[in-house]
């Protein structure tokens, strides 16, 4: 089969690989019909995530038709069209039974590696390095899905792939980010990052009852996309100070909740952002957390900082004193995708939201390497890339 493979920093190729097979009783093999390139794939592309190996198959936003199932599968049949969550839950451990699927105890076969870095390993992830299990990803013609009874959402016949593909990651991710804000009537939410996750977080915040949503970015096309959802855009390159701007716009109180939908590769014009870049270039730091610093400083007293943006390592100069003094609540982590897929599918089927608005590019798999480069170099032009596979 054809597959998009990681070949090194800023190198992706299309390879002819073997086809996946059933390895465990709970597996399914899926013929991929659509896959997407995620902003967090760019962290792999840019070499920020350790333990990648040349030849690893990329991709964690995947859907398709079930073509084979293992003898232990009970909830999915050959012929079903399913969306596959990016995080892999076993369905039976303490965390999965608590609907905290991204914290699964059992699905990461390399969990001792993650234990040594993080204390305790979370779930395996598709296509996201050997630290998270080394599972082959879904930017390929076929994918093996372990524990498929837990890791699948069956889609009704006749629903377009583009409407539901993002149930695999960015829509539940943005929704959980907003859900974690504990939004109450009248609340103002600020979202840093108008990329696909930020766009979903904005719309989710409104679905959950936010009265105002501020969005901070510097890509005009992304800000315009957010504005179409009712958000108030702030281009941080056009204001004198982003923290002063947010304070002014919120009547001197600050947002009730702040969502960091940027994560470890924050750009920015502050002195601390420049220091982050210098440290990362000299391998003195792993992450660039300037957005997180801003979110902490901007948030109202007693507010929530919600972090769907990926962080990987050690962060420098975090104003934790400010967080303590203001009694902030932090909510973060990889998405418990399986928890949100069915209710969000229902919202789509009820025409409350059509997530396909975020797509800007549709490609064939052979165009994958060029698409990665475009996505990396031209974020204003390229917001979301979908690969039409079969």
């Amino acid at each position, binding site marked *: 089969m054809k*597959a998009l493979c990681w070949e090194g920093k800023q190198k992706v190729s299309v390879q002819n690989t073997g086809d996946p097979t059933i390895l465990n009783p709970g597996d399914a093999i899926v013929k991929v019909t659509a896959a997407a390139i995620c902003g967090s794939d760019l962290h792999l592309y840019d070499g920020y995530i350790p333990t990648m190996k040349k030849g690893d198959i990329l991709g964690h936003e995947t859907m398709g038709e079930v073509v084979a199932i293992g003898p232990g599968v009970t909830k999915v049949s050959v012929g079903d069209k399913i969306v596959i969550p990016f995080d892999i839950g076993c369905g039976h*451990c303490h965390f999965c039974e608590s609907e905290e699927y991204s914290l699964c105890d*059992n699905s990461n076969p390399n969990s*001792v590696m993650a234990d040594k870095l993080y204390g305790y390993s979370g779930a395996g992830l598709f296509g996201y390095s050997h630290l998270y299990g080394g599972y082959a990803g879904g930017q390929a013609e076929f994918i093996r899905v372990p524990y498929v009874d837990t890791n699948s959402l069956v889609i009704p016949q006749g629903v377009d792939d583009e409407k539901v593909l993002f149930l695999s990651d960015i829509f539940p991710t943005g929704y959980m980010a907003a859900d974690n804000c504990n939004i109450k009537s009248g609340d103002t939410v600020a979202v840093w990052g108008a990329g696909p996750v930020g766009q979903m977080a904005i719309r989710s915040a409104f679905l959950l009852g936010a009265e105002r949503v501020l969005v901070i970015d510097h890509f005009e096309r992304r800000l315009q996309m957010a504005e179409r959802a009712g958000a108030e855009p702030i281009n941080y390159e056009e204001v004198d100070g982003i923290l002063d701007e947010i304070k002014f716009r919120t009547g001197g109180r600050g947002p009730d909740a702040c969502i960091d939908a940027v994560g470890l590769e924050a750009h920015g014009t502050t002195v601390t952002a420049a220091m982050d870049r210098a440290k990362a270039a000299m391998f003195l730091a792993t992450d660039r957390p300037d957005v997180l610093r801003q979110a902490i400083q901007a948030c109202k007293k007693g507010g929530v900082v919600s972090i769907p943006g990926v962080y990987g390592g050690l962060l420098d100069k975090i104003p934790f004193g400010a967080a303590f003094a203001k009694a902030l609540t932090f909510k973060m982590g990889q998405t418990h995708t399986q928890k949100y897929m069915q209710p969000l599918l229902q919202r789509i089927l009820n025409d409350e939201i059509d997530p396909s608005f975020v797509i800007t590019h549709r490609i064939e798999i052979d165009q994958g390497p060029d698409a990665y480069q475009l996505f990396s170099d031209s974020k204003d032009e390229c917001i979301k890339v979908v690969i039409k596979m079969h």
Partner: protein
Amino acid sequence: MAQEFSPPFTLFSDFSALAKSERELLSPSLEPQTKSRNAVTIKRDIDKVFAFVSNVDHLSDLLLTAELRAAPGKENWGLDLSVEREAGQIRFASTRQSLVSVRGTVSFAEASGHRGTVITVESDYDLPGGKVQEWLKTFSGHDPHSVIQIQLKRLKAFMETGEIPTTQGQPSGRSNETSSTVH
């Protein structure tokens, strides 16, 4: 509800490959530890867990001992276990004929909040000579503590889900597994 499991069962089907992938990130311990304390919580009733682990083949697999048997060229590191079972505990010790001396205790207790069973493994190893250090670096890349922890995790996964998670046999774009680069 986890699937019922039935023998044959081995925790070691792909351990050597697993160790290699982890070794690339972890710095291999240069000094073998001779004391090990490990714990895991398994979401199954204590009776079932005790019955399963106290099967001597499963117990051997669980401990470092099985890896010693599996290490290439180490067939002469004979290891016989003497096992004593009593309520809530399994004591094990190598016999005088073994070249590797190991002794310890596997304990079972109900997890707080009725969350299953806690297994703790406390063991002392007296491993022969400098060859062990070489073996640890080249074969496993791990100290005994990490090896047992891996095995406990695999036991937990098997008992909770009926499967051990694996990626061995999946496709990739590595040169020895592909036919060609397309683009």
